[in-house]
């Protein structure tokens, strides 16, 4: 199995290489001049030219590409002119903020989605089942932007229960940070919640109707044991796949939520990078997101292997 893991790991490298190349080309194709974005539209031509030289933009594209790759190999992700810092430490400082929010949201989504999904499967085709599946559909289709503003209007402005925006201050205690996390976390959790509920529900329905379950019940094993131990474990594989994708999706898709709640994470940084044509930062964040996706996929594959002995033994 270790051999398989190493092989999966090596397979990620060509993927990342392609991502880097495509991003490099795409950023260069964006209209707008990064030097003008930094210096302002009223800047003198000579100063714009000098800035372009400083940013290495006057060199031919293949040469820029080579120096970027050479930098990557030594761990130098470039310099961000819009934040006036090196890209790697900048991303590193923002990632924890987004990770906190994303992990909290996903934890909440897994818990609620899981419970709802299991109950819906057990009460299949009853009113409860229909209601919750419709809610799941609404959860997936509702625009986060609208939901966020509605929640803020209700809970912050009208009822004054929760703060409107921001991340809170650790110096004011963990409670302050948690209070700030509730609304954005909930908004971020709606889509994963719905997805998890539906996935667990179908998985459970499948396993609940299989022969071995009837056998177990016939042998006198209590229903809750059958459900929680046997059925749940066997309906995990599709959930694990979905979970892996959702982690990466939610992490990279938190841009809108972070924007609305002024959560100082990767989302706001990416927005600024794009608006300022900050090539190094755009490339750095895309590369980071790609690494996240690839890593999550790898974890999913490994977890799948561990859950399903057939995969472990069979294919190489």
């Amino acid at each position, binding site marked *: 199995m270790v051999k398989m893991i190493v092989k999966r790991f090596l397979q990620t490298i060509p993927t990342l290489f392609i991502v880097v190349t495509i991003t490099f080309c795409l950023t260069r194709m964006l209209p707008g001049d990064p030097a003008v974005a930094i210096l302002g539209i009223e*800047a*003198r031509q000579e100063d714009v030219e000098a800035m372009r030289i400083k940013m290495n933009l006057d060199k031919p594209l293949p040469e820029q590409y080579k120096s970027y790759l050479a930098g990557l190999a030594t761990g130098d992700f470039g310099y961000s002119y819009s934040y006036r810092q090196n890209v790697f430490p900048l991303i590193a400082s923002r990632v924890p903020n987004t990770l906190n929010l994303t992990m909290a949201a996903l934890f909440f989504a897994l818990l609620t989605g899981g419970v709802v999904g299991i109950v819906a499967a057990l009460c299949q085709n009853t009113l409860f089942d*229909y209601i919750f599946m*419709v809610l799941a559909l609404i959860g997936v289709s509702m625009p986060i932007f609208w939901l966020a503003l509605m929640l*803020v209007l209700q809970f912050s402005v009208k009822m*004054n229960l929760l703060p*409107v925006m921001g991340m809170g201050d650790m110096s004011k205690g963990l409670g302050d940070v948690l209070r700030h996390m509730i609304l954005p976390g909930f908004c971020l959790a709606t889509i994963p919640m719905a997805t998890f509920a539906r996935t667990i529900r179908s998985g459970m329905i499948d396993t609940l109707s299989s022969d071995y379950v009837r056998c177990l019940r016939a042998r006198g094993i209590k229903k809750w044991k059958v459900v929680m131990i046997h059925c749940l474990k066997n309906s995990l594989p599709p959930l694990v796949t979905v979970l892996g994708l959702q982690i990466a999706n939610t992490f990279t898709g938190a841009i809108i939520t972070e924007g*609305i*709640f002024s959560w100082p994470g990767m989302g706001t940084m990416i*927005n600024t990078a794009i608006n300022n044509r900050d090539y190094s930062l755009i490339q750095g964040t895309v590369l980071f997101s790609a690494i996240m996706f690839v890593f999550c996929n790898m974890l999913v594959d490994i977890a799948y292997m561990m859950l399903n002995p057939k995969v472990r033994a069979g294919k190489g």
Partner: protein
Amino acid sequence: MMREKKLMALVLAGLMTVSALTGCGNSESNNGGGSEKAAAGTTAVSPDANAAGQTLDAAISIGQTDAKVTEGGTLVVSMLSSPRSLDPAVYTTMYELHVMYNIVGSLFIWDKEYKEFIPNLATDYTVSEDGLSYTVNLRDDVYFQDGKYVKGRKMTAEDVKYSLERSKAESATDRVCRDFFDYVEVVSDTQVILHMTSPAGPFISRLAEIGTAIVPREEVEGWGEDFGNHLVGTGPFTLEEVVTDEKIVLNRNENYWGTKPHVDGIEFRIIADSNQAINAVSTGEVDIAMYLQGEAIKRAQDEGLLLQTSASSITYVRYNLHHGPTADPKVRQALTMAVDIDAMVSGIYQYGEGTRAYQPLTAYSWAYNTDFNALVPAYDVEGAKALLAEAGYPDGFTMTLYIGSTTYREKMAQMLQYYWAEIGVTLYIRTSTMAEWTASITDSWQADVVNSYGVSWNESPDPYGFLDRFFGTATIHASSNAGGYSDEEIDRLLSQAFSLTGREERTKVYDEIMETVMSDYTGIYYAYECRNWAVSDKVHDAVLRADSQMVVTSPFNNIWIEN
């Protein structure tokens, strides 16, 4: 089974309707309480483009009651975007200005009405007969804040020399009329002479801009490129903390030479969404939300939180003067006649945040002459059609309009599309981000791809900031003159007006210029837009000046917050 399914479908439809209505319901319920709340402050009257010599009354917040002045508290202000570099020689956006304004000081500052500049670090000045030297006297009691390299040192003439010459040499943008300003001569610790290579009327007003703020050499040289994150100056507040994309914290400067601020400090928060900014003011998390747009303005008005002042700006559409159908003045005249500009302005600005304009100049300028309003042709659809036929386009033609993707511009574009369709002109609208817009329209007069473009232009009320930028051959490759206006006689007159230092003489020359350019139908200069702030009812004495500068403590105001 069928019955259950039909029931489910009905329930589903019901849920959808309810959730859709909830969205509407919330905004309506705000209107109920609005009429009972006191106004956030005196609201400035929008400029009447038909009234001569009017002064701008800046809007001032009065809080809710006649409470006594209370000391202390932190003023929380929200902005749309994060400042990048707080260096007077490097900054590029308004967001940086707001923060810097409270940390550094310039020789002069604009008064409340944004009309005259009043002494700040300088006490007075005289200008020589030939306009080539300005003798400026400085205050004797100004000290720099504590930085890493400078510790409360007294500011002297040497610092003025350093800062002004640095701005000339290093700033990519022209902040100090660098082609006319030569060097600073230090006469004594409290007197300098600013030498010019040639006379420049607007130069002295540049000394009221933050681009010419006085900074300590030790800090600039000590921090190098990082100076922008560690700004040190002579202003009422010191820079404490910068957390990018989150907040900027300023503390009161206890050694400030001027009025002691009532508040303990200022916190600038970055809130990108206008609606969220108002939410934060409603809950009290933010005291002042700057830059409201669209419906947020109506909401602020309903909740009694709105502060509004007209900006020193002009919003316009200009034509390509060299290529395409708009190269013909008759066509341009026809296009202008085809638009009911009054109706268009009321249609775009539904909450009073914009008023009718006529000329390519702010109505608050001392050079504004209402006589020239008459040069804008009246709304006349038949007349426009006849002119077009005369110009050789009896069946109309197609043209493009380039705008930035904001609500106001898009509304304007759609209205123009409608009006011009009435005379047979098909308009294609091209929207994009401001960066792309600028790239598309600069030098567009050289081809016929861009027939017209629309944007807003803000500047201090000196006519040079408007007329030179719009009609000078020198700016033909800048976005401000993308229509390509170039005329030798106008250039000569512009230089002449620029070099004179007396207001009356300059006004005479600007009158000549205005008459000529307006008869050329270079564009539709249709509106004066407002600045809009939402201000909490606990804030007193916040002044919304025409340039929307975040002025916390100054000779004309000192913000305080009720407990």
